[in-house]
């Protein structure tokens, strides 16, 4: 069954099409959720909520743009809603050394994705969310600021510190 046929089946509330679509995208979306939540159960709950929203609102998908991108956006928005409910703690800007520069040594081609995930999980929640949104999802600081209800400056400082900590962890991992 093609993606278009699956979408059409889901719009008709066909359970087989929904199951097929779920099997196709849910594992990847679980990978997205896992970057935002260190607790696997919480990540799974967010995925469930996101996929439900997807099926309930699939009639709003006009067919413009990537379908996977549309799903991803729904799942990320669901994750951010949950994070807002959890009241993320952002460290204040004056605690952060904005002048710190990244070392030239930052390649991590040999590291496994599970190791990188562990590093992301070990970041403070504010760092982790901003890093995910900016570095991996490609949000701008302005979009992040609106989504999380923070200033652009806070977003920048969180990102800077997140990168710094990640690089330290990568170097340490490579030395081991």
């Amino acid at each position, binding site marked *: 069954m093609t993606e278009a046929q699956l979408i059409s089946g889901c719009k008709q*509330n066909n*359970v087989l099409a*929904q*199951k097929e679509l*779920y099997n196709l995208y*849910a*594992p*990847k979306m*679980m*990978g997205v959720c*896992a*970057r935002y939540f260190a607790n696997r*159960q919480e990540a*799974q*709950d967010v*995925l*469930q909520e996101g*996929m*439900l929203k997807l*099926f*309930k609102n699939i009639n709003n998908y006009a067919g413009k743009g990537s379908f996977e991108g549309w799903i991803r956006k729904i799942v990320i928005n669901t994750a951010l809603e949950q994070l807002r409910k959890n009241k993320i703690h952002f460290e204040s800007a004056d605690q952060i050394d904005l002048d710190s*520069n*990244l070392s*030239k040594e*930052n*390649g*991590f*081609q040999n*590291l496994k*994705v599970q190791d*990188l*995930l562990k590093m992301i999980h070990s970041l403070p929640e504010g760092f982790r969310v901003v890093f995910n949104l*900016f*570095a*991996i999802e*490609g949000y701008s600081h302005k979009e992040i600021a609106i989504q999380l209800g923070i200033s652009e400056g806070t977003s920048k400082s969180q990102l800077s510190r997140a*990168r710094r900590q*990640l*690089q330290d962890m990568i170097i340490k991992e490579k030395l081991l």
Partner: protein
Amino acid sequence: MDNQEQHMDKDFQQAFEDFNLDIQPQVWEEIREELHPRKEKKKTLWLWTSGIAAVLVIGLLLIPNSNEEFNQVLVDELEKDFNEDLKEEVNNSKDSIIPNKKTTKPIIKLKALIAEQIIILSDDITEEQQAAIIEFEQEAKEQLPVIADFEQQVIDQVLDVHPITILAANDVVQIIDSNTTFIEDSTTNQVALQDSIFAPKKKKPSLTVPLDIDFGKKRSKWLLAANLNSSTSNGGSDQLSDDQSVMATDASDEAATSDFTEEFSDVNKAASNITKSGKLVTAMSVGYKVQHNLYVNAGLAYTNQSFFVDGQSSLVSGIGVPVGLRFNLLDKNKKHIYISGGLMYELLLNAPLDINQSWNISSAIGGDLPVWNQWQAFIQIGALKEIITIVESPLSPLFQIGLRYQFEK
């Protein structure tokens, strides 16, 4: 943003581009249930489960509070039926007592021996029947190795039938084991037996249930009886009534030299005063989701219970195999509140007396929470009734903790 930062971001993007993770099957199940709710089935299931749970709880609560007078009438009626059936069996032709089928023969013969003993006591036996009895006994001796197991099984059942029947059952064993004749050996005890068997009003109240068992061509009515003693505090007890104890003492006095009397004294002593505490069960089980919110559970349990025999306590451990149903009343964030009910076969590891196994029926309310992957920790409290055991007990409190591995289609 300098090149270094861009490079790092790109590396992370690439690393997570095709990153997938496995998901527990229940996620899809819950999405599907949300999108396509099975309202009708759910309602029916609720009704069924609530009905079963209600019957179970009411049954368990009612049994120990049964009206003694009612029980006594029931005992009298059923006991009368029981004796009459046994008499009728012996009065039937020899062929019907000793059927040709090899498989049923030993049991029928043993039943006949027990029946004969009771009939002899009532002085209601013909010479022809006595001859038949002696012949049965002779055959029983010859087939002793074959029927030994059957004897034990039947005697075990007889012990459940009625406390006083212990006398008859033990006497049968003694008869077969000894070289003396049946009638001579049991004469001494007949008076006591007769008084005991035909004096039902002196017995403790019991709940007695008739049960038809088909032995080959013949249908025989058996009685299952559960003694309902309310004289103990915590868990449960079984004891002979004062009247029965007096009768037993009389029997002992009259037949001081007989093995039978010694056996009876032992039984009397053993069963004189046993109480039990509530049961603590630690379990490891597997749960399988069969329908929305309905699970089948099975597992392995370790039990602990205190027995008090004549005032002395001993901690008795057991290994149990519980099987049951669980219905979630509340399901929120993978945490559940549920009701459950089921059966557990239990083998006691250091049993007092010779009681080393029993069946338990229980009903409980409990809760669980996820601990790791599909493992859940659970805790539940409820009530438990031991069935098919010598030491009958009223409801006991049940406290259960454990781990459960949850899986589904």
